[in-house]
Structure formats: C-alpha cells, structure tokens
C-alpha cells in the first residue's frame, strides 16, 4: 500500500495539465508584446471569453453526462433576439406585442431552457442520437433568428438586456464576475453534490447509474435544460457587450467550445473531465486569440498558427496527463 499515493496526487493534477501551457502562453505573450501583460489587456481577454466560457461550462456538463449538444451556439443568438422582439415595437423590428422591457432577460432564459428541454425530449424520450438531433436543432434554432428578423440586426434593445454585458462591478466587467461565479458553482456542484456526481456516473455507465438509483432520464433532461439556459445567458452577455444582436451571433462558436472542453480534459465519451479543466481550456484559447491579434499575424495564415497551437496544447496535456485521450 505504498504505491497509491503518487497516483492520487497525479489524478488530482490531471485537471491542470494545461497550466504549463497557460504559463508558457503568458511568457510568450509578454515577450512578444508589451501590451499583453497590462491589466487592461488581461481584463479584455477575460471579458471576451466570458460569454463563450458559459457555453463551455454547459457543454462540459453535457459531455460529462455522456451526451452532446451542438445547438447551444444557435441559442446564443436566438434566445435573446426572440426575447427582445417580444418587447420592442414593430418599427424596431419587434413583433409588436409590446411586453414590458424588464421581462426580456427572464424571457431569454426561458427560451433557452425551452430549447434545451426540446432537445432533451427528443434525445431521451425518443432515444434519438444526441449528435444529430442537436445538429438539426442548430440549424432550426438559427432559422428562428433569421426568419423573424429577415436577416436584419436588432439594435434598438431595451436597456435591461444591455446591462449585464456592459456593466462594471468593482472595477471589472460584470460578465467576468458572472462567469466566475457560475464556474465556481459548476466546480462545486460537479465536485461536491450528489446530483453533480451523478453526471459522472451517467456518463461513465448509464446502466450502472440506473441500477444505483440515479434517475438517469430526469438528470439528463435537467442538464439539457440547464445547458440551454446557460447558452441564453451567454447570449445576453454577448448582446450587452456588442450592443446589438446580429444575425450570426454565436454562429461558429461550437467548434471552439468543443476545442476548449476537450483540450481541458473533458472526454467526448462521457464520464471524464472536470469543470476546472474546461476553464483552463477556455483560457488557453482566449490567450492564443489575444496574442495572435496583438502580434498581427496575417489573416490568411492565422488559422494555421491557431490550429497548430491547439494541437500543441493537446500534446502537452497528453504528455502531462499521461493517458490516452478519447
């Protein structure tokens, strides 16, 4: 009984295999551009990643529970847009129903939850493939942004939906605080709550989880609903940051979301990974984007460098983590 000790310690650090990558990026960034290490720039990085990080949080939970949700990226635009259109006048591109403006945030969250619930319904009740259901939903939900707006940007927004994404709390953008609190809650829930732990059991072996008395279907459904709600919140933050809802808000995010979750150690096969790991993944991606922007790499070659850095991060986390990935 002497061997176990080092193994345990390793296991605990497995969430943090990206920390050397983050340190490396900070050193490289500081070296390449003096602006990089300024508080202003680092705050910008965090603010820019706040919205997408909520998607990573949602996707990490869904992946850990052994499922998949591609449609989150469409919810980012559609949930706040439909909510806004419920309250603004026809002249500004709304439906002209004229519901009170303060309700726009609850509406948006509800719409996100409803999209998640519909995903969950199809996947769990009908036992359809999560990948393909949410792929179809990605297309459909985005259509529900494009259709009613006819491709136009909504820019006359009620003040309430702009607040969260643009306010400053204690000298930092509110979005950073919100993301931080939600990540802390996620780390706590998936580490210390029975419900959170049940995601690992379901993702690891759903028959065993069922046999152990976990209400697998109910928990999964809850995770999809929570995922949709977080995506809607991400949309609210993004709306506040940009001051308008464009027709492709959120479009194309999902690849980055998966990249962040997976290099952060969350397995695509379910049951493995942590929220803290996913957070490190988000930070790596944010720092890489920031550095590439600062040094002004040619737009044509930027993707190559970016992709190569993801690959290198993956290899480093493979070597540091020591286990084959899936």
């Amino acid at each position, binding site marked *: 009984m002497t061997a176990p000790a080092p193994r345990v310690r390793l296991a605990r650090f497995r969430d943090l295999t990206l920390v050397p990558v983050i340190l490396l990026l900070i050193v490289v960034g500081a070296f390449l551009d003096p602006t990089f290490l*300024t508080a202003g720039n680092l705050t910008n990085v965090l603010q820019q990643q706040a919205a997408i990080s909520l998607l990573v949080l949602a996707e990490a939970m869904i992946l850990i529970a052994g499922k998949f949700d591609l449609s989150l990226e469409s919810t980012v635009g559609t949930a706040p847009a439909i909510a806004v259109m419920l309250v603004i006048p026809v002249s500004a591109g709304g439906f002209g129903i004229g519901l009170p403006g303060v309700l726009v945030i609850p509406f948006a969250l509800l719409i996100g939850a409803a999209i998640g619930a519909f995903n969950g319904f199809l996947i769990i009740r009908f036992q359809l493939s999560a990948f393909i259901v949410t792929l179809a939903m990605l297309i459909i939900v985005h259509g529900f942004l494009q259709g009613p707006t006819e491709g136009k940007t909504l820019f006359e927004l009620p003040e309430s939906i702009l607040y969260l994404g643009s306010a400053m709390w204690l000298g930092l953008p509110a979005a950073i605080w919100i993301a931080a609190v939600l990540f802390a809650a996620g780390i706590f829930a998936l580490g210390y709550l029975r419900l959170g732990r049940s995601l690992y059991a379901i993702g690891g072996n759903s028959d065993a989880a069922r046999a152990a008395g976990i209400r697998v279907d109910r928990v999964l459904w809850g995770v999809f609903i929570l995922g949709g709600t977080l995506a809607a919140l991400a949309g609210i933050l993004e709306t506040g940051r940009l001051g308008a809802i*464009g027709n492709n808000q959120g479009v194309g995010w999902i690849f980055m979301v998966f990249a962040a979750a997976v290099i952060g150690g969350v397995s695509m096969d379910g049951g493995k990974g942590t929220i803290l790991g996913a957070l490190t993944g988000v930070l790596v991606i944010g720092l890489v984007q920031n550095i590439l922007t600062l040094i002004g790499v040619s737009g044509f070659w*930027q993707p190559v460098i970016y992709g190569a850095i993801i690959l290198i991060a993956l290899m480093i986390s493979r070597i540091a983590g020591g286990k084959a990935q899936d």
Partner: protein
Amino acid sequence: SGTSTEGGGGGGKVGIDHPRADSDFWNSYIKYVPQMAGELKVDLMPATNSQNDVAKLVNNVQALIGQGAKVIVMAPQDTGAVANTLQQLENKKIPVVTVDTRPDKGKVYMVVRADNRAYGTKACEFLGEKLGGKGKVVQLQGALSSINGRDRSEAFSECMKAKFPGITVFSEPTEWEGSKAASMLQTRLEQNPDIKGIYMHAGGVHLAPTLQVLKQKGLLVPPTDDKHIFVISNDGIPQEFEAIRKGDIDATVSQPADLYAKYALFYAKAAADGKSFKPGPTDHGSTIIQLPNGLEDQLPAPLVTKENVDDKSLWGNQVK
C-alpha cells in the same frame, strides 16, 4: 476633397481591421492597403482580421487601441453589433473610418462605400432592358445575414417589381457559396428552361459555377443566339472582365476595391491630422453626404460592359 478645414496637428498610428479573407474583392482590398499606405505616408499598424465575425472585430479593436492606435479603420459586416464599440471609441476620442458598410448606430468620422443598393438597382435595370421587360431571371443571392447581400437582394427585387413587373424573379440563397449556387441554378434551369437572365451577387464565388452550369446545358452562346442568357455580375474582378470580353457574361458592377483602400486611408490620415469635412461633391468624382451619425463618401461604382471593359481606370484591369 469636398471642403476640408485644418484643425490642430498631431498625426498618429492608424489601426486597421480587415473584415474577411475569403473573397476576391476583400483580398484585393487587403492588398491595396499597404500600397496606398505607402503612397499616402500613413503610419499603419499591422492589420488584424476579424474573419466575418463581429465578436472578433470587437476584440481586435480593443487590442489595436491597447497598442496605441489613434484612428481605426474597419469594415463591420454586421452593422448593428458594432454600436457599443463605436460608443467606446467615441468616448476615447478615437475617430473611426468604416469601409463598405454604414453602421446603424454610433459615431463615425467617415463612411467610405459604394452604395450596395445601387448595385442591385443597376443590375435590375440592365437585365430589365435586355429582356425587354418580360421573362424570367434568377438572382444568386449572397448571405442574407450580411448587409451587402441583403441590400443587393432587396434593391434588385424592389426595382424589378416597380420597373419591370413583367419579369419573374427567382431568388436563390447561396450563402456566398459556389457549390450552392451551382446546384440551385442547375435545378432552377431544369425547372424553367426559359430563364433569360442571371444576376450574381458576387463574381468571385458565383462566376465559375454559373459558367460551368451554362456550359453543361449548352447555353453559353453569344447574345445574337435565341438561347442566350444575359448574365450580370458584381465585384469587377479581372476574371469577370475576361468573361465579358469573351462574351460569356454581359456586364458587371465594378466595386472599387482600390478606391476603398485609398480613401479609407486618406480619411484616416485626415482624421489623425485633425481635419474635418463637409457634405458636397469631392475632387475624386464622388459625393459626401450627411448621415445622422457622421459623413459618408459615396464612391462611384461603374457598370462595366463590353464597351468599357478595357478602361484602364477600372481596378480589375490594374491587378497583376
């Protein structure tokens, strides 16, 4: 240039963000930028590229400011979602020149663009006349979520409805994709063999697939032939000119990539030097108009046909 007044001196670094790198038009623009910067002696910072993503645009602009930009040149493809950024820039007293698009909200120093609605109208008038006001035409639309695609599309359709009610318009949403354009055009021609006109929103992506479909159907014949389909394109890239010379297509609207680059930097430098402008005609054949949130220099976008296709002043004839 219209009327300019000297203000306090200064100068300073100009930050520029390119909107995308996946269309010929923007790539020509991107190539003109450093060249024009050299000619105009603009202190240009390394350009960023927001890859058609307004979130990236915002990040890039923040980075440029962080690095000390005094003027920003950008081409927001999403004209609504930059409102907050423009507000921030205004608060920081950093003037903004936008290229190609006109932001819906937020202060701009100068908008440098040709009118995309005018492109659609020009194409409509050209096809309407050629077809004698009756028959069927196809418009291969760009992405409807982009303002340019939407402007061209709406202007074309509205003009057809108003001026040529005898013409039926089929609108195909190609998302700027050649593959979709080819499939949709092929299917539509199968269904309506009597289609007589095509308006392509972007020669860069639509030209080759359209010609390939027409060739396969044996419809690539001179205007004198009954089977000829009149094709008008949009962009003004050299390949379109080549196709016009060969008689494969009939016209294009030349989008002035060189002038975009030149006047974007010209106004950026002017802003850095503290100059200001007033509405009115300019010395380069355009007009400055007043917007609620700034000024706009409407550059000319000539219609190119077989008659003027060899005109040296067209940017498409200067590309090497």
